[in-house]
């Protein structure tokens, strides 16, 4: 638990962004290649501007990218009930019949809805019982389905999408690394990594390894006054032995470990022990914010995130709030595109991990 000085206030994560700066469709549907997006690189040294295809040249042989191998499910279901036709976005699977889910007025219009305990929703001919609001996250409910959710998704589901985009075919939401279905929202950071970029990375001696973390519905705006008080839903994850070994040997060589996506940061930081990364599996609700910092990685490749979201708290944990604010101001000025189909941002931890740990160590002693 951090002292008061560590507490980040939610208003520190506000920034202005013109509404037109978001990508409403993926580049491949705009007549471009998937990897034809821009890449901004930020560190305490400042910000530089590139094409995403420059990524292999921005890294050093021996560096390691860690990607999320979770694939995206069509987790948004049409439902009806006392309030009429609504939408039900599945979030966290406990079993085929037991989920945390978010009832919304529609894909475009969020809740919370005036629902009651023991109320029934209908999806096709199947029933879903709302048995408890999710503790600490009032817009989610624990729900029991009388049919396996995988069957409901196969029959009625579409990918979760929000007001800024329509629902595209499910393939749009997979990356070349997706192999284990379970995320309800696309782990989108690796979307622009095409086979040619992957091959260029590997050809240059930059490693790629994987974790699995099945992403739930993304947090809306942080609702609590201090960023650290926000509750996150547990997410199922796995950091395999081979990945833990690859990360540890990369650190030992003095190379950089780059997480590809915020989901990877959560998995790696959950699996971090004081002496390095360990193989680890289960369910994590770790919230990475400046009060706890990051230990397992030297940088994050991600998209551009909305104001006052938990993702921004994570970015601040990696590079510091000043670096993040500077980077986002520059991204607005250079008209980068926001959201999952938009441009990419590589944010690097400076000083280096080793120097940082040394500094922390001497400050504590």
């Amino acid at each position, binding site marked *: 638990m951090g002292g008061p000085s560590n507490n980040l206030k939610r208003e520190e994560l506000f920034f202005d962004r013109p509404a037109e700066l978001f990508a409403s469709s993926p580049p491949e549907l705009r007549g471009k290649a998937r990897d034809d997006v821009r890449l901004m690189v930020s560190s305490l040294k400042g910000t530089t501007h590139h094409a995403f295809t420059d990524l292999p040249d921005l890294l050093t042989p021996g560096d390691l990218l860690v990607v999320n191998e979770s694939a995206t499910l069509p987790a948004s279901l049409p439902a009806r009930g006392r309030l009429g036709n609504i939408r039900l976005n599945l979030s966290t699977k406990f079993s085929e019949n037991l989920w945390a889910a978010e009832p919304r007025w529609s894909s475009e219009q969020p809740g919370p809805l005036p629902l009651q305990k023991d109320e029934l929703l209908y999806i096709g001919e199947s029933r879903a019982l709302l048995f408890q609001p999710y503790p600490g996250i009032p817009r989610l409910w*624990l729900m029991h389905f009388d049919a396996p959710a995988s069957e409901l998704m196969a029959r009625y589901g579409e990918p979760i999408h929000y007001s800024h985009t329509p629902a595209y075919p499910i393939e749009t939401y997979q990356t070349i690394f997706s192999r284990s279905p379970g995320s309800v929202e696309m782990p989108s950071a690796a979307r622009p990594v095409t086979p040619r970029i992957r091959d260029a990375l590997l050809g240059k001696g930059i490693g790629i390894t994987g974790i699995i973390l099945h992403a739930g519905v993304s947090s809306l705006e942080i609702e609590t006054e201090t960023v650290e008080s926000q509750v996150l839903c547990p997410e199922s994850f796995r950091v395999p032995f081979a990945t833990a070994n690859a990360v540890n040997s990369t650190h030992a060589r003095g190379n950089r470990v780059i997480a590809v996506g915020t989901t990877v940061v959560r998995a790696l930081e959950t699996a971090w022990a004081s002496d390095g990364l360990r193989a680890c599996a*289960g369910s994590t609700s770790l919230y990475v914010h400046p009060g706890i910092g990051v230990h397992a990685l030297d940088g994050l490749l991600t998209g551009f995130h909305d104001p006052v979201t938990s993702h921004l708290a994570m970015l601040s944990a990696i590079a510091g709030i000043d670096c993040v604010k500077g980077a986002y101001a520059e991204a607005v000025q250079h008209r980068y595109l926001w959201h999952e189909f938009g441009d990419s941002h590589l944010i690097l931890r400076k000083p280096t991990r080793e120097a940082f740990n040394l500094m922390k160590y001497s400050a504590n002693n």
Partner: protein
Amino acid sequence: MQIPDFAEAEVARLRNIALVTGAGRGLGRVLAVFLAGQEYDLVITARTRAELEEVATSIRRSGVRVSALPGDINDPGHRTRLLSETSRMGGVSLLVNNASDIGETPLPELAKASLERFRITLETNLVSPLALIQDALPQLQQTHGMVVNITSGASQAGYERWGIYGSSKAGLDLISKTLATELKPLGISVVAVDPGDMRTQMHQEAFSNEDISDRPLPEVTLPFWAWLTNQDPLVVSGKRYRAQGMLWEVPATT
């Protein structure tokens, strides 16, 4: 592929049956209601009959079978009745040792604690849970069942004045871990669960003059129960979980 009829009949007969102690209020009540919602048949027990009846009534609405047997788990005759009932229903597959005794209140320093009262706490929190497990073994072996022992953060921390309650729970932690090893060959799993700080009557008794309204209600543990009851029991056996913790870990296999 056609599944033979007898196999379907077997599956239909295999309903989950849970025995929850201390089910009249607080955590035990929340857990019993949750399990009923997941289609467990239930045997519930607590000392206060009126409270237990109320829980049974709300559970019956779920359409599952429920037997509410008021009594004291320190009474061997009562333990026998509980397990005869689970046996009659088909055999217990989930035994939750939740009933606990906070001991003297206000909580005493160890130097001044009543030893006579300490023995009662040990009996309720340590001896009787083991007795119930011993008596349930034949049923648990048949169902490849799981035992959940409710422990406490006080079992590890050395908080001032929590030494009586905490030491009984520390004993229960070790019983859980040892039993997990000893019972694995029988296909029986044992986990210990620390539910964390909650707004319950027992907690109010422990903090007799304090306002505990800032603590979450025991419903805060529901996501954990949803998770635990859907894990492979033998994979999680021997673990101690914090229901409000940020990591619920299973052994890494790859």
